């Protein structure tokens, strides 16, 4: 597009300002983790790595970390299974209500997280008389994680031509063999990406978790939340916060690398690359 020099400079400034707005708070919290003082005044008077060793020694934080991993792994496993199944149905078959599936899958993330939380909590405690526990947390997380797997998988299936599968069938492979030797290898990296994103989503989720977790249990975000109001614990919270940022960012980065050209390279696959990437727009987190 032809723009005057001034407009170009202004736009570039807007981008830099936007990036600064996005990154400065994250940088500040990382710096605070190395703050030598216990008080969160800015700027920190000196630097130390003491709080990280304290954080690793903290029994409650470690336990919460394990709980988060357990919840994340279980929710990811369920989301992978259900998301893949739904994507195969939608991308490879025509049936009544096919359009509704995408809507159904995205609903738990399009509605505010608090709704999912209250609804699941209500069903378990009031109707089924099942006490809240790690299990109910996993159910909640899996529900909103399906969409990430589904989106990545549908996008990939649309890119992979169905003719390969027809060829496989023509050559005598049965349905299972075609899936195992033709479809699955093509989907694999998209599924890994979807799984990584689902894990990242589950790992730092707090709203649904808060409503579905049993008394006395804590995931890492809940541990952070409950310690935010204890000034004495804040230095350790800062260190844990940095670890949480890393653990949520690394899977996302890897997932992006795995499906990179579905997302970041524009204009290739024809219609709607973003609907493709999944990682990009649809796979939004539900805090």
């Amino acid at each position: 597009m032809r723009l005057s020099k001034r407009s170009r400079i202004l736009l570039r400034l807007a981008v830099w300002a936007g990036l600064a707005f996005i990154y400065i708070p994250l940088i500040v919290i990382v710096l605070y983790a190395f703050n030598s003082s216990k008080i969160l005044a800015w700027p920190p008077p000196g630097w130390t790595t003491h709080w990280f060793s304290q954080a690793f020694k903290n029994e409650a934080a470690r336990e919460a970390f394990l709980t988060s991993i357990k919840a994340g792994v279980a929710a990811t496993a369920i989301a992978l299974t259900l998301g893949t199944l739904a994507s195969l149905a939608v991308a490879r078959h025509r049936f009544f209500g096919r359009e509704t599936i995408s809507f159904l899958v995205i609903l738990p993330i399009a509605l505010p997280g608090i709704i999912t939380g209250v609804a699941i909590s209500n069903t378990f405690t009031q109707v089924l008389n099942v006490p809240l526990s790690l299990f109910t947390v996993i159910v909640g997380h899996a529900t909103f994680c399906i969409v990430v797997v589904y989106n990545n998988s549908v996008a990939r299936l649309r890119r992979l031509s169905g003719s390969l599968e027809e060829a496989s069938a023509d050559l005598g492979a049965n349905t299972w063999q075609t899936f195992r030797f033709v479809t699955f290898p093509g989907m694999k990296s998209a599924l890994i990406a979807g799984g990584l994103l689902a894990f990242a989503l589950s790992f730092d989720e707090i709203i649904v978790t808060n409503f579905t977790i049993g008394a006395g249990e804590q995931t890492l975000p809940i541990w952070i939340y409950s310690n935010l109001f204890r000034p004495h614990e804040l230095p350790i919270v800062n260190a844990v916060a940095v670890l949480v940022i890393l653990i949520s960012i690394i899977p996302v980065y890897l997932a992006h690398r795995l499906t990179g050209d579905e997302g970041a390279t524009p204009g290739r696959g024809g219609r709607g690359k973003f609907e493709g990437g999944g990682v990009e727009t649809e796979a939004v987190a539900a805090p």
Partner: protein
Amino acid sequence: MATEAVIERRSTGHRLAGLLHGRPRLQVGALLAGPVGWLVIGYLGSLALLLVAAFWSVDPLSGATIKKFTLENFESLVNEPVYRTIVWRTIRTALLVTLTDAIIAFPIAFYMAKLASRRGKALLVVGILLPLWSSYLVKVYAWRTLLSTDGAIHWALSPIGLDTPGYGTTAVWLVFSYLWLPYMILPIYAGLERIPNSLISASEDLGASPFTTFRRVILPLSFPAVVAGSIFTFSLTLGDYITPRLVSNDQFIGNVIFNNIANNQPFAAALALVPIVVMIAYLLVARKLGAFEHV
């Protein structure tokens, strides 16, 4: 023994595959049973039960849920002005945050889509994606420290005679706008990517100024993408209770739901219907505006 087991398993697999072969309806059924069961029976079922529970009540003495139809919850929702204030505050904030994010996001998305180099584009997408996914709670907490009276904002602004807004309504607006900004940037970027450059060139060749091209070509074509982004900014604000709790004393719908969940779940359920109704209305409007092709 072992080979036998393998043969046995394979033959069941074969039999199953044979059964599915050439029966697309059966295949679809097998594929959808799990996910649709989970989402329709589990999730939609829970939402339906939430609707039912909204008409229950709690025995004030024993605290037990009375599963009998009553309009009590909705009566207090409508009659007590405090709830009206809270609902209105939440919706107003959600709209304001959506508007703020659209204004900040558009130039960034435009630069990414139409001006950046291939490499710059890829870097910017990752640059926006990573913070989107980094821990929500940590981001709110970061703002809590930034906004505090001896925090970084105070430090940066005091030399020029300004000060941190502190905790309160402004802080909530600022933090929400911060949190959901990437959710707005990415759909707009995607929408702008889809506008063929040839359309823009054509407009320019026909003598339109950049502003006219923007107003008559780019904006109408990308508007559905803005609406798509606004679904997230609006919905996420509507249900949040952590941010208001951490950076203000304001009550939002989410706070009241959370405060009632332990002692008066029916009332919490009734309150939870408010964001659902608002969101459904919003989604219907968004669909009219063509946003769903962009989500």
